């Protein structure tokens, strides 16, 4: 259970999130809203990568900033830049080693990613960068999955594979998307963030 309690976040004078409270239970949530309304910031806060100016965020009563919460969170966001000098294989290896996870061969096969495994992260196409980011988010089987625009840049086959994987996911899933297959999907609870005045 992912809980936001009176969370506010500003960047300089720009208040992006203002006194936000919400509980995300096991289930699927799609956050929608205009560009710049704070969807990605919300995911970054939920993953503990940004610190709130005020309020608290916890996963199963453990603050997301605690080390103990990290293994239970999986994040895919374009904001997370992977080391440019490492190949996809090296990134996955390091991820698996750090999270004590199995090599995600099944995921690599399903997403047809094997041919790109030896390519350096910035040299991957936009779609393959997204696939890599999704593989890293999923491969340690987190309880809470945070995906920022998971279908952007993917081909139709990969979109279907990801949609199926997310359908089967039984933890807490929070995604941001403008893709109708998520934003108009009856299996997803839709949370609309208000545009800033």
């Amino acid at each position, binding site marked *: 259970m992912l809980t936001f309690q009176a969370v506010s976040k500003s960047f300089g004078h720009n208040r992006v999130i203002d006194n936000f409270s919400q509980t995300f239970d096991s289930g699927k949530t799609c956050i929608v809203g205009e560009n710049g309304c704070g969807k990605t910031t919300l995911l970054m806060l939920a993953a503990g*990568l940004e610190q709130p100016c005020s309020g608290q965020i916890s996963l199963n009563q453990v603050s997301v900033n605690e080390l*103990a919460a990290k293994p239970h969170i999986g994040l895919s966001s374009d904001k*997370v*830049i992977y080391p440019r*000098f490492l190949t996809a294989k090296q990134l996955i*290896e*390091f991820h698996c080693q750090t999270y004590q996870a199995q090599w995600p061969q099944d995921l690599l096969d399903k997403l047809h990613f094997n041919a790109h495994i030896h390519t350096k992260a910035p040299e991957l196409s936009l779609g393959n960068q997204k696939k890599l980011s999704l593989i890293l988010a999923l491969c340690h089987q987190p309880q809470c999955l945070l995906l920022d625009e998971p279908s952007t840049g993917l081909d139709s086959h990969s979109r279907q594979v990801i949609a199926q994987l997310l359908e089967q996911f039984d933890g807490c899933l929070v995604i941001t998307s403008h893709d109708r297959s998520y934003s108009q999907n009856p299996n997803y609870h839709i949370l609309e963030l208000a545009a800033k005045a």
Partner: protein
Amino acid sequence: MNYVALRRQIYQHEISQLLAAIRDFGLFIAAVCYQLIIPMFLILPIFMGGQIAEADTSTTQRLFHQSVYLLLSFTLLKIQAKAITGGSYQYYLTSIPASVGQKVYSHIKLCLIGGNLVLLSPLVLCFFMPNLAVIVSTRHLIFFTLMVLLISQTAILRTNPPIISLAITPLLSYFAIRYYPDLQSNALTLAWLIIMVIEFCFVDKVKFNSRGRQLTHYNQMLLLFMRHRRANVVGRSFGVVTIMALFYYYLLQRPDFDLPLAHYIIASPIAIFVGSYQFEIERFRNQYRYYRSTFPLSNQFYRLNETLPLALLSLLTLSLGGYFLHWGLELMLIELILISATAWGVRSWGRFYFIANITATGIIIALLN
């Protein structure tokens, strides 16, 4: 604006970017050594060019001068390679319908601007040979000029470093001279030139393992980051060669220089090189701060592992200093203190890190006296 002017503008922009990228180290050079750097870059190519051209210079001395000169030429142009070729804008530049003549002219012009006196001095010496007899007696200079031109093009147009030409050949030549003292400079330089031509043609055919090693530890990632940053590796190589040339130039000015004291003085810039690697750690932390934060690893783990690469480099420096410069335990300890002071300066004072090094050097010299 025509094509040549565009290439010149790209060159200037890229150089300003490069200077910004290596300003951390460059600030030290500018602040501490500027009085020596400018005359060194004016005098050293002319002095070394003269020594190389001189028919009476011994083969060993010529070998030394040629090696340093080629290394200096290579690093000077390698650091500017992207600016000279306009590599960042290669698709755009290829799309412009410029003639081959314009492209070649731009390339030569930018090479000469980038190479400056290092390229010009052997060329000038070659062009001012008075007669055929002089040309024949100093033909090694013509071979050497070709080597300088070739190494500059290798630096600009090739990706892999010419290790055979810059390291292996001089080393083998040194041993060859020791065992065959009658070896002629002309033959040696010509052989070196031939090796260089062959390496120029084939150096990029060598493919390093692009698949990469297995990566399971965080400090492996840090070491790869340090190695990957081109501006860092080339800039530092250029810095090392510059400081060594500066030291050499200083010794030329002061033949009565006290050598043990010279060791103490050289310990400070070496510590700057090693200790300023802390900039890379800081850069990694800033650049990949989100990525780092995704892992279930404690601050203590990060602190420890981010100290290890620098510790490793320090150990390597001390070992090399002990082996090649015959550093004693006292000098090793001083070097360690200076490296630590530099790294601490980077973390605390950023670009003004060298103040910590200079203060520590001053205190040590005062204590030793």
